[in-house]
């Protein structure tokens, strides 16, 4: 990174935090701090929802996934528009009319206190883990790129998040997210055009598409049904549909976003904006990864994209042999790629690609980890113009902060509303509860930093986040399905349904090879079935006794 890049990086960080603080300057009541006084327009909610979900991990990991595995990950988002439509018709009006601060408050209105407390606990465990990962995952990568220690990176990111989230509340978080999404899209467009522009002069954009397709990198849709395949059309529509329903319908980090809307209609528009925009945006991000793959067909990339692993592997006795194989395979692949452009067969190109992959796999085995998350940043830092590098690193930095601030804000809200006020201090002044909300924000921020510092190494980071979510979301979704649609199920049925659903998910994860997206379906169905059965049993018991 040059001096200009550092200036741009710190300028962007200072601007974003200051802007968030300025927009959140009047957060002087609990309602303002937690729900922005219910004044948010749809576009701010929509962009904020997108920014919270599109964390730094998305840019670091998704582009790398397209590079090594193609674009099939886009199918993960096919369930999102379905979920947005269902939630716009159900959860949005229900939560607004219930006048709640959190989704879990509604469970006490509908069922009882024990069901609310149980689901609150599940949320705090799940989102607490997620908040740590959201901070740790990008910090691992950014610390290597910036040359900072991992601990310093997490403390700087976490410290800034705590500062503006504690001061400005959800208004600061939301408006910072809006700026963030605009700059993210601009930065990604720049990266895309530069990847195309830097191709050799005799390789057109359509040649690049042909080569990416020949290498199997444009595999956006797979219609084959397979329980063990993580990403196909069916797991995307059904498994991911359930995950998205749970994420946007029961996770306070998202519910709180659309509760800030000034009307039911504004909240619906915020969700439906995501329904329309999210899939094409993810397609575009993956497509950038595929184009970076084509770029590296003609410019030899390092054997490993992780710079520290590369240094370590260089000292291994097998390195010289692996490097020689890699260099030879790269030359063969480049020559074969040119023949494919001229209309030649693709078999030779695919065989050379396999040799390149085999050499990289051997090097990754020596390094002890894969380097998927370093591919895009390696491209950015080595091939993008000065200043733009700083901007993109800054955007990734603040994307991590955005995801983390949304999670910390929601954890603090649930801690204040569903734990502190519900169980420990039912009456108090607005000033008192505002102070408690701020203290809870600081607590969860410190917790996320501490968790991040003890986090183990994660493979493809975004999958780690989604897998943690999928272990809990199914049962959370199940209890809200009971609450919204099954009037005859009471508190006891819902409570035991959640426990049984959670046990079913853990059993499936532990003892079967079923891909993680399906845990959401299993958990939800078990909660609904168990809730119905227990309530039916209770009614029968009442009739006969």
């Amino acid at each position, binding site marked *: 990174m040059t001096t200009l890049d550092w200036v741009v990086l710190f300028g962007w960080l200072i601007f974003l935090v200051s802007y968030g603080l300025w927009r959140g300057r009047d957060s002087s009541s609990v*309602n303002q701090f937690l729900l922005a006084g219910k004044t948010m327009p749809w576009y701010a909610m929509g962009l904020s929802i997108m920014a919270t979900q599109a964390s730094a991990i998305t840019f670091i990991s998704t582009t790398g996934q397209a590079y090594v595995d193609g674009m099939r990950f886009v199918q993960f988002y096919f369930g999102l528009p379905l979920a947005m439509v269902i939630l716009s018709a159900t959860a949005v009006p229900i939560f607004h*009319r219930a006048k709640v601060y959190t989704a879990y408050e509604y469970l006490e209105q509908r069922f009882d206190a024990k069901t609310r407390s149980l689901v609150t606990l599940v949320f705090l465990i799940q989102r607490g883990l997620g908040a740590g990962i959201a901070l740790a995952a990008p910090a691992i990568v950014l610390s290597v790129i910036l040359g900072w220690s991992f601990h310093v990176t997490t403390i700087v990111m976490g410290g800034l998040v705590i500062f503006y989230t504690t001061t400005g509340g959800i208004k600061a978080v939301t408006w910072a997210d809006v700026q963030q999404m605009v700059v993210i899209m601009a930065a990604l467009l720049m990266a895309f055009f530069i990847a195309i522009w830097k191709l050799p002069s005799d390789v057109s954009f359509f040649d690049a598409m042909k080569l990416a397709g*020949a290498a199997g990198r444009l595999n956006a849709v797979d*219609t084959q049904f397979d329980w063990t395949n993580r990403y196909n059309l069916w797991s995307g529509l059904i498994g991911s549909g359930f995950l998205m329903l749970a994420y946007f319908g029961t996770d306070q980090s998202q519910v709180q976003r659309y509760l800030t809307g000034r009307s039911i*209609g504004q909240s619906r528009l915020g969700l439906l904006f995501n329904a329309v925009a999210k899939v*094409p945006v993810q397609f575009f991000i993956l497509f950038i990864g595929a184009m970076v793959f084509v770029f590296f067909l003609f410019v030899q990339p390092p054997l490993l994209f992780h710079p520290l692993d590369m240094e370590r592997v260089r000292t291994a006795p097998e390195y010289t042999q692996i490097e020689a194989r890699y260099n030879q395979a790269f030359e063969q692949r480049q020559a074969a790629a040119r023949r494919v452009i001229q209309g030649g067969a693709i078999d030779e190109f695919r065989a050379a690609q396999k040799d390149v992959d085999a050499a990289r796999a051997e090097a990754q085995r020596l390094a002890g980890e894969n380097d998927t998350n370093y591919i895009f940043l390696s491209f950015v830092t080595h091939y993008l113009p000065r200043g733009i590098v700083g901007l993109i690193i800054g955007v990734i930095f603040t994307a991590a902060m955005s995801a983390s601030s949304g999670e910390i804000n929601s954890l603090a809200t649930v801690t204040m509303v569903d734990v502190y006020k519900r169980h420990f201090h039912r009456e108090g002044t*607005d000033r008192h509860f505002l102070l408690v909300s701020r203290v809870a924000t600081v607590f969860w921020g410190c917790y996320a930093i501490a968790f991040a510092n003890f986090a183990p190494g994660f493979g493809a980071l975004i999958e780690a986040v989604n897998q943690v979510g999928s272990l809990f979301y199914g049962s959370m979704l199940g209890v809200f399905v009971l609450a919204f649609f099954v009037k005859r199920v009471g508190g006891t049925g819902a409570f035991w349904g959640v426990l049984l659903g959670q046990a079913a998910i853990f059993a499936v994860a532990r003892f079967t090879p079923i891909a993680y997206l399906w845990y959401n379906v299993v958990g939800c169905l078990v909660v609904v079935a168990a809730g119905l059965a227990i309530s039916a049993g209770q009614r029968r018991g009442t009739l006969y006794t």
Partner: protein
Amino acid sequence: MTTGDPREDKPILDEPPPLLGTWPKVYWFVLAYLAVVIFLFWLFTSHYAP
């Protein structure tokens, strides 16, 4: 909570959508849009399949 909370008094507004007249029509539009997007991605995949 003695908060003077403005949401206690605020009426819950449920206005019609800015386009297409009713919310169910907007929902069907979004679902049709999803079907078209998936179909286009499938054409894209088939065209560039190795």
